[in-house]
């Protein structure tokens, strides 16, 4: 644990695998930029890896004032212990006030290990971060400029704002896809600080015997239009309506967890709390009741069209266009209407 350090920097863990930067550090830096501007401190990216120096420049273009670069052959492949050890040492050396991680597979493995070693707090899966003040009830003491770590909890039914009063750094993992990345600025200048790393074989306790990654079948995060189907489609055959409408709109097909669980479509297409978070220009929800867990992943869409036979479906609470009716007649009408307007992808 480090003490409250109001001059401390704001850090973003720059997750990379095989020399390819993940999306999350870029998303996080645009949010972190707002935090540092409020706090009047520097934004630093922390880049661990082997031969990854060229990513440092990219991080500067995306908003970092400084990049701490820790390179070592033992950091070539992510492992909990080696990465946690280097992060722990850097945190205690530089005493940042805030450290942010993407809530990715690696981020959710790494951050709690660091938090435990540092004896600091950690809030998982934040969907928003703000700077604010907190008055403790007991002594009426005002704690200024704390990191508000905002996250859904209780299956998405409540939104909790978590703070760390005195045991710093203030740390959080942030859900993928919820922060909007900034445009890179190739003219931005920043400092690259090379850090000496000492690691031995003992810091790599796992033998990674084999690994297989497959590309995602669909890039929902990048889609401008999404057509999503729910359990209301009734069958995998009928789910074809979603594909047809998506084709017509040049949209990405997506689904609720229920539809994925029913085998209508692959998990890569899942939107919601346990799937992808999206914010397209248009989200067409077909046969989706709109459980809170689904809404968590799509409520930020600019326009929402909902088709459902149940007028009380919660999806209608957030839809801009409500169509109460049988999706089996409405969706073909939509396809027909689009074709008449000359829209066919």
């Amino acid at each position: 644990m480090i003490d409250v350090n109001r001059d401390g920097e704001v850090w973003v863990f720059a997750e990379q695998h095989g020399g390819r930067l993940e999306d999350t550090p870029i998303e996080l830096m645009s949010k972190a930029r707002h935090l540092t501007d409020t706090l009047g401190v520097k934004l630093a990216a922390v880049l661990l890896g082997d031969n990854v120096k060229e990513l440092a420049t990219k991080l500067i273009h995306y908003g970092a004032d400084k990049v701490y670069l820790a390179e070592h052959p033992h950091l070539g492949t992510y492992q909990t212990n080696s990465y946690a050890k280097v992060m722990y040492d850097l945190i205690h050396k530089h005493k940042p006030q805030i450290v942010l991680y993407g809530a990715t597979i690696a981020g959710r493995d790494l951050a709690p290990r660091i938090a435990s070693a540092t004896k600091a707090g950690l809030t998982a899966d934040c969907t928003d971060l703000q700077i604010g003040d907190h008055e403790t009830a007991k002594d009426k003491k005002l704690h200024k400029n704390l990191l508000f770590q905002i996250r859904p909890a209780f299956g998405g039914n409540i939104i909790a704002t978590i703070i760390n009063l005195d045991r710093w750094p203030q740390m959080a993992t942030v859900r993928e896809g919820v922060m909007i990345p900034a445009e890179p600025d190739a003219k931005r200048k920043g400092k690259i600080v090379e850090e000496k790393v000492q690691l031995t074989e003992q810091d790599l306790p796992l033998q990674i015997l084999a690994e297989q990654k497959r590309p995602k079948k669909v890039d929902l995060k990048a889609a401008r239009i999404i057509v999503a189907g729910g359990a209301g489609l009734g069958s995998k055959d009928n789910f074809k309506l979603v594909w047809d409408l998506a084709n017509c709109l040049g949209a990405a097909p997506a689904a609720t967890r229920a539809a994925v669980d029913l085998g209508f479509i692959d998990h890569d297409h899942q939107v919601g709390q346990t799937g992808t978070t999206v914010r397209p220009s248009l989200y067409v929800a077909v046969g989706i009741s709109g459980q809170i867990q689904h809404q968590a992943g799509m409520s930020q869409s600019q326009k929402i069209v909902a088709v459902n036979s149940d007028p009380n479906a919660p999806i209608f609470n957030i839809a801009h266009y409500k169509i109460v009716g049988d999706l089996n007649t409405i969706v073909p009408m939509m396809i027909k209407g689009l074709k008449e307007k000359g829209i066919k992808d």
Partner: protein
Amino acid sequence: MSYNCVVLVKQVPDTKRITGDVMNDDGTVKRSALPAIFNPEDLNALELALQIKECYGGHITVITMGLPAASAILRDSLYRGADDAVLVTDPRCAASDTLATSYILSCAVRKLDYDIVLCGRQAIDGDTAQVGPQTAEKLDVKQITYVEELEQLDDKEITVRRNIGNGWQQVRAELPVLLTVTGGANEPRVAAAKKMMKYKKAMTPFEIEQKIKTENPDANQADIKELIEHKSKEIEQAGLLIKQWNLDYLDADLSWCGQSGSPSKVHRIQSVVLAAKESKEVEPNQKGVADMIHELIEDKTIA
């Protein structure tokens, strides 16, 4: 070679099955009205431990930290095949965040011989997935998260397959190790009728005391004490005692437990109320749909 497994489990409100009955009129959830269940992925962790025991032999201890009522999931674990159950309960555990919880659980695990510690990837009330890795750090053992398959256990080494989202990773590590197990790892077995018959009478010391006091409302304190001692001995001899440990028994440093051990504080809790937006009813006919499409093209939503 046989292996000692310790499984960390949690009793959670069933946040996934929220129906109209548990909603307040303002659209928020009545949390107290939700049924308490065995955290789903902890059942997958227990199942994996049971499979290890079946294949290689060994002993399974299940630990939970919680209120006295959390003994329900310990009995459930015994029904499914666990050998031993421990309830860590103490009012001073209240308000523990994940850091304090992992500290307390690590103190409890240290009281036992273990080769493999297992827990679910995450609990459905918080979804943090933090307690596993934090407990591993406190125990100073390796962690392997998102385990979906046990591939091999030989002598001092374990090989598992991890689910890394868009693929898998096969890793090997020397024991001891802590595994966090995903919901896709296995199909948890149901309670065995025979074990259920036996263990439905399993009780914690707290429950024994409650039972004696309810059954003997008029007895004096000395008698109550004697009755409790007698009953406890009887339960223990039958192999039905669920161990109950408090923070003193764990030799826990109180400054790392409960409120004082928790760096995370709640600033504010807001209920999610599904917000109404500016919205239009579209007539469910061809004209209504066509008008909507026209608008979406006009405002350049559809290119």
